[in-house]
């Protein structure tokens, strides 16, 4: 049934020229029904060469990372370096609502394809530019990568162990977040166009996207001139946020993560009662442990007792007791692996994962389902990522009206 409801972005056309930094932006738009055409150079997007590969066999049509970030997009090849390629690009741009790109600032202008030129031809077009540092400023032309974005944006400083180098978040969060903010900005531009008919240039900086991720580190410096250090075992949260203790503890079958007292003292009391109900609270029932300042001062003692407690249970036992045994919930969660998530009964009950057919692999692959569920315009996961140049014929012949002869000529010139 879901397939019959239109997406919120149905009827909008996106030319997606973005590399890995911006790949998730187009995916989000495709998920809500926009016609997103991935425009790759003839040699293919670099992400096609990123591991992991399907059944571990490296091949440009088997990158699982590429699959994930290009679900639901169509794909064509086009060389902007060739004049014929640029002509085709302009024809495509005339029919597009958005162009998403992550080239170095100034590159499109140098080809005569800058925002001014594009807008003259189609005033409603929005150009979404995603770069490591933004379009202007002294670092605008600096090279970036996910890790460099995390470093320059201040979030890397806060991650990891005191006795080792600062440590990055897993799963390319710099690019995911930059793409996500770009998608927000694109939607703001769309709402603006709904009111005025005009497109605009959206300029996203990955560095700034990471700079909004600093919790209270920015304000602590602004207010106190204090630099929050990375945590080692301890989470660098401000004093009133509970006892500021170690976050991750071993269970009998993996790890759990806990925030012992965030909003109210009864969260903490519940945790102590829970340990006591199993005879594992040690001396923690002494009233002095209800003073969070005591806890902060003597947290290693608590941590030792709590670790002995968590070690004596599975993650599932801890999770269920934390959330269902007492009137107040304890904020404890299992540190899940991909396998745990794949077999999670809650996600199963919600029908979260979706199957997408890959005829070339002779298989249907499972993918994460919707990041959010819209009741009227549901998320769509209809078709796998495009093969390189898969829709050249569809787009160039059927939509732009090129003849088969012209198409072959363009191919042999390396324009597509």
């Amino acid at each position, binding site marked *: 049934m879901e397939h019959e409801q239109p997406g919120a972005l149905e009827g909008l056309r996106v030319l997606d020229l973005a590399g890995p930094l911006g790949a998730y932006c187009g995916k989000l738009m495709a998920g809500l029904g926009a016609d997103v055409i991935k425009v790759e150079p003839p040699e293919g997007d670099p992400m096609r060469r990123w591991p*992991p590969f399907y059944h571990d066999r490296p091949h440009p049509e088997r990158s699982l*990372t590429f*699959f994930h970030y290009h679900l639901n997009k169509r794909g064509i090849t086009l060389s902007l370096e060739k004049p014929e390629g640029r002509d085709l690009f302009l024809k495509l741009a005339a029919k597009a609502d958005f162009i998403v790109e992550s080239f170095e600032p100034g590159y499109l202008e140098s080809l005569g394809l800058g925002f001014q030129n594009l807008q003259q031809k189609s005033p409603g077009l929005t150009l979404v530019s995603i770069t490591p*540092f*933004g379009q*202007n400023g*002294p670092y605008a032309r*600096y090279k970036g*990568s996910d*890790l*460099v974005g995390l*470093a320059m944006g*201040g979030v890397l400083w*806060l991650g*990891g162990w005191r006795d*080792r*180098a*600062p440590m990055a978040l*897993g799963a390319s969060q710099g690019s*995911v977040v930059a793409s996500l903010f770009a*998608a927000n900005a694109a939607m*703001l*531009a769309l*709402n603006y166009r*709904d*009111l005025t008919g005009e497109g*605009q240039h959206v*300029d*996203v900086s990955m560095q*700034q996207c990471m*700079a*909004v991720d600093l*919790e209270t580190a*920015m*304000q602590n410096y*602004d*207010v*106190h001139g204090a630099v929050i250090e990375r*945590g080692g075992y301890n989470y660098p949260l*401000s004093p*009133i946020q509970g006892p500021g203790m170690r976050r*991750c503890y*071993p269970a009998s079958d993996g*790890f759990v*993560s806990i*925030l012992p007292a*965030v909003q109210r003292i009864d969260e903490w009391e519940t945790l102590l009662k829970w340990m006591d109900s199993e005879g594992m609270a040690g001396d923690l029932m002494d009233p002095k442990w209800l003073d969070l300042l005591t806890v902060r001062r003597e947290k290693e003692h608590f941590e030792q007792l709590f670790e002995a407690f968590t070690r004596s249970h599975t993650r599932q036992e801890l999770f269920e007791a934390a*959330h269902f045994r007492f009137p107040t919930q304890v*904020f404890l*969660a*299992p540190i899940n*692996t*991909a396998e745990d*998530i794949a077999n999670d009964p809650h996600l199963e009950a919600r029908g979260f994962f979706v199957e997408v057919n890959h005829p070339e692999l002779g298989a249907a*692959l499972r993918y994460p389902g919707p*990041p*959010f*569920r819209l009741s*009227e*315009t549901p998320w769509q996961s209809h078709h796998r990522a495009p093969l390189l140049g898969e829709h050249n014929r569809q787009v160039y012949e059927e939509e732009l009206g090129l003849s088969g002869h012209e198409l072959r000529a363009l191919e042999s010139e390396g324009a597509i």
Partner: protein
Amino acid sequence: MTAPLEGIRVADFGWRAVAPIAARMLAWYGAEVIHIESYTRLCGMRQSGPFPPGTETSLNTSGFFNNFNCSKLAVTLNLATSEGIKVAKGLIKISDVVVENFSGGVMEKLGLGYRDLAQIRPDVILVSHSLMGTSGPWRRVSGHGPNVQAMAGLDHITGYPDRDPIGSGVSHTDYTINPHHSAFAILAALHHRRLTGRGQYIDLAQYESVINATGPMMLEYFANGRVPGRAGNRHPAAAPHGVYRCRDENTWCAITVFADEEWQRLCQAIGRPELARDPRFDCLECRQANEDALDRTLEAWTSQRTPGEVMEQLQRCGVAAGAVQHAGDLLTRDPQLRARGHYHYPDHPEAGRRAYDGPPFKLSAAPARVERAPLLAEHNDYLYRELLNLTEETITDYIVQGVIA
């Protein structure tokens, strides 16, 4: 100048991080966002620091709260009273978007579920941001960002392979992934409503939202039966790819090399052209096979220099490198953020001039509006007198009865 969300009103029932941050995106771009709070159930953020010295007992000066609630209006209303619910419905009737992040099921219990709201305001867009979504066996499980990160697998793949997980330095998904998945969905739904006149219900389960941000990990398991683990700062398609010690204590620089040409340039940049011909390092697979030796070689060079010198010298040769900056660097030294105007310093009657994050992007035709955060209850008069046209008598009664509280 037209703002993208001119004429849009948002009732923000959110507290703490996710829903208020989603609503902040709308406030930056012209929506009138009314943040509903209550003295009887204070948002913990108002009680969390950092506070400017001497203002620790104020509910209006938390840097944590203010940064997330800039450009909004603030009112107090006690939803634990039936009159409070009636007033809330009055506000919803004149709102376009309603956001909330109670635990799953709480809004229904209050009589403010989507069905109730759609009767009052048929084209309303209601957005829930519970941890687990509004269905499923664990829908009542509540928690915070770090719990979500753990469940969605991010903690398991963040860290070093030879050590236990440690979590992340910040509650990352609270400030980025979840609120901005939500804001994206809201903005798309607003566009759809302009075209069709139809509102809708958006159920964002934070757990599911974050799994989308760690997606390739899931495909690796489903397709290859392998469970990805922690890889430190390394990357499967790059080498070197790491964080290297610089000259002074606790100073670091990130360096990443994906293509072989970049490696060649790096060797030139550090004055070691012979390394480019070293068979241990002349292809990605070779560099990955010898990554410990590679990292030691590079660190011998970085440890003689400051992060700024490393960055500039490598960037001059087109190699991606960046100083590991802390918040003080960002606020006071980084010339790029200054040129971009990332921080805003609106004056606040109790907190003074404090730094606020602006949006991490620019729209050429629609500048953002970054205004100071509201004081608790600052806009009660505006809501109750101007918008809802309540009589003086009713307002007095509500105050006495603890409804406006």
